[in-house]
């Protein structure tokens, strides 16, 4: 048994950490402290965390260590991931820590209850390292819409880490956490995973309870895992998944074969479908090259590659930008300056509740949130409802039909996760439409409720930045994604000679150039 230094410890996967904890080669306090030290060292550069939960995390870690040291039935009953720390996107409510949703309107607010996924993390005794940054109310693709400043991409600190879950993805990529929770409404787990060289999984809609995730668009939102390996995401989904009576959209199906699927180790005879509409024109050359490389590897491993067409995907982005804001305008009506957080009084004139509400929402919401509320209010107004919201719901049916036809020809579908690698901070901030186009390949899965996994596909030749490969499966078939994802991951790592993140620039006190990249 060799002693690991902290730098080696934080680079272990969650599965490796779990094994070392179970074998009592390390303690959870050592692991948790190593991550807290790493956060202290690099988060000034990355800004992945909005709140660090050191005291509680160390207390949970110490509890796990004490149980393990005592042995017996209680030690045997510990969850496999007990003592493995995790970060949580600040859209998910937690007792004992503030929840801001990245918005000024909730600054300083503390939830009186835990989200179901948080209860499950606590039951598994996983120390919660803190809350991660996001675009305000999860609205954005770059984390630049956070009221608390942008998160930076660990691969290049001048670039975006994706969004809305840029904080969770960057924390995992920068070795500030082995695991994190994200939420995905149009790609907010998968696209940050793609641009930071990490793994992100959007489970089937309803596979993980949404209770306690501050709602953005309720028919699209889904909580899911963020990690550095495919197996780690499978382990985490098995912790957080399962039926929850507090979420009436929660599925009763068991999702308990995910870890086994990730360990299957072969794709022989599986049909993998390339979606004609989700690559080629509009996709960066380096993204396309890495995508083709992954297809070759899967083919060599015994999968059959077929081409499928989803002609209605061309309407998906437009339909999404009608359905999502419509639901946003309704869900965010509750931020009224009465029940939670901020209250701003109008500067002059009568002090009525309507005027206080309007002043509070003007001061508390950022530009992107306001845009979406106005757009949603428009799409739902009398005279426009049928043409906008009604039509978009029909497109949703067409997208589901496209997927049904595609899955009749293939077990799993594949595409790049995002059309480009990480862009520069500020580059698309003044052009909302250009920002929205980042999600063109991830949105269809949310519209149809199906699961989607993004895993690192290598670095683009032209800029040396990570490219994401997206896998999609029919609803309830999350296990297929873990099976194919784990095989592709091992083939790629064999090619690279190790994990992709080993190629990322050094951060923190051990880096020689401040803010160093490339």
């Amino acid at each position: 048994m060799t002693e690991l230094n902290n730098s080696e410890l934080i680079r272990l996967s969650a599965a490796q950490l779990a094994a070392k904890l179970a074998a009592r080669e390390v303690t959870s306090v050592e692991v948790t402290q190593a991550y807290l030290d790493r956060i202290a060292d690099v988060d000034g550069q990355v800004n992945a965390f909005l709140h660090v939960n050191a005291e509680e995390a160390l207390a949970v870690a110490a509890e796990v260590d004490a149980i393990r040291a005592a042995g017996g039935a209680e030690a045997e009953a510990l969850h496999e991931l007990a003592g493995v720390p995790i970060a949580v996107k600040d859209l998910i409510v937690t007792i004992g820590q503030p929840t801001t949703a990245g918005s000024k309107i909730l600054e300083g607010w503390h939830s009186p209850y835990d989200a179901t996924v948080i209860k499950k993390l606590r039951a598994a005794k996983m120390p919660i390292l803190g809350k991660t940054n996001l675009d305000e109310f999860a609205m954005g693709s770059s984390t630049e819409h956070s009221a608390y400043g942008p998160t930076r991409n660990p691969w290049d600190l001048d670039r975006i880490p994706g969004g809305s879950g840029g904080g969770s993805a960057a924390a995992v990529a920068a070795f500030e956490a082995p695991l994190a929770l994200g939420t995905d409404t149009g790609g907010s787990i998968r696209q940050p995973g793609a641009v930071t060289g990490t793994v992100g999984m959007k489970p089937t809609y309803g596979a993980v309870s949404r209770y306690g995730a501050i709602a953005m668009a309720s028919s699209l939102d889904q909580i899911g895992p963020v990690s550095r390996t495919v197996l780690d995401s499978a382990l985490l989904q098995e912790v957080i998944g399962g039926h929850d009576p507090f979420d009436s959209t929660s599925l009763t199906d068991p999702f308990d074969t995910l870890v086994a699927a990730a360990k299957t180790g072969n794709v022989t005879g599986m049909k993998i479908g390339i979606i004609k509409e989700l690559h080629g024109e509009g996709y960066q050359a380096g993204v396309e090259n890495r995508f083709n490389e992954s297809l070759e590897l899967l083919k060599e491993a015994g999968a059959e590659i077929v081409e499928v067409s989803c002609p209605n995907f061309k309407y998906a982005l437009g339909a999404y930008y009608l359905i999502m804001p419509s639901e946003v305008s309704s869900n965010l009506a509750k931020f009224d300056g009465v029940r939670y957080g901020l209250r701003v009084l109008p500067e002059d004139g009568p002090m009525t509740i309507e005027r206080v509400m309007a002043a509070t929402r003007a001061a508390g919401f950022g530009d992107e949130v306001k845009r979406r509320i106005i757009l949603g209010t428009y799409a739902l107004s009398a005279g426009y409802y049928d043409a906008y919201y009604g039509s978009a719901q029909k497109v949703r049916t067409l997208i589901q039909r496209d997927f049904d036809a595609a899955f009749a020809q293939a077990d799993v579908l594949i595409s790049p996760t995002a059309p480009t690698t990480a862009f520069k901070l500020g580059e698309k901030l003044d052009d909302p439409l250009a920002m929205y186009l980042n999600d063109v390949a991830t949105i269809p899965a949310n519209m149809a409720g199906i699961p989607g996994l993004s895993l690192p596909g290598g670095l683009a030749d032209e800029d040396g930045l990570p490219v994401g490969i997206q896998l999609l499966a029919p609803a309830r078939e999350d296990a297929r994604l873990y099976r194919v994802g784990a095989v592709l991951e091992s083939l790629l790592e064999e090619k690279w000679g190790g994990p992709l993140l080993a190629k990322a620039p050094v951060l923190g006190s051990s880096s020689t150039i401040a803010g160093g990249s490339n």
Partner: protein
Amino acid sequence: MAAINRDDVAHLARLAHIEMSAEELDRMAGELAVIVDSVKSVSEAAGDDVPATSHPIPLSNVFREDVVGHTFTAEQALSGAPDSFEGRFKVPAILDED
């Protein structure tokens, strides 16, 4: 479909209870016009024969036992409120004075 103009945005902002400055209305109207234009094609995508989907995974009649579960105390429910008085949310005048 009609384009969205500055007066529409002002009206929508009132409906959504968001105060907006003149400058904000100008900018928002321009940005929203581009977005609305880009989603226009959606109305031409599907014919009358296509049913609408409001929920991705069809579920029906989701019930639970009619028993009292966990409830918050008034103190917990008011813990995040900007203002409260004797166990209630305190708000400014609900009606205009005139």
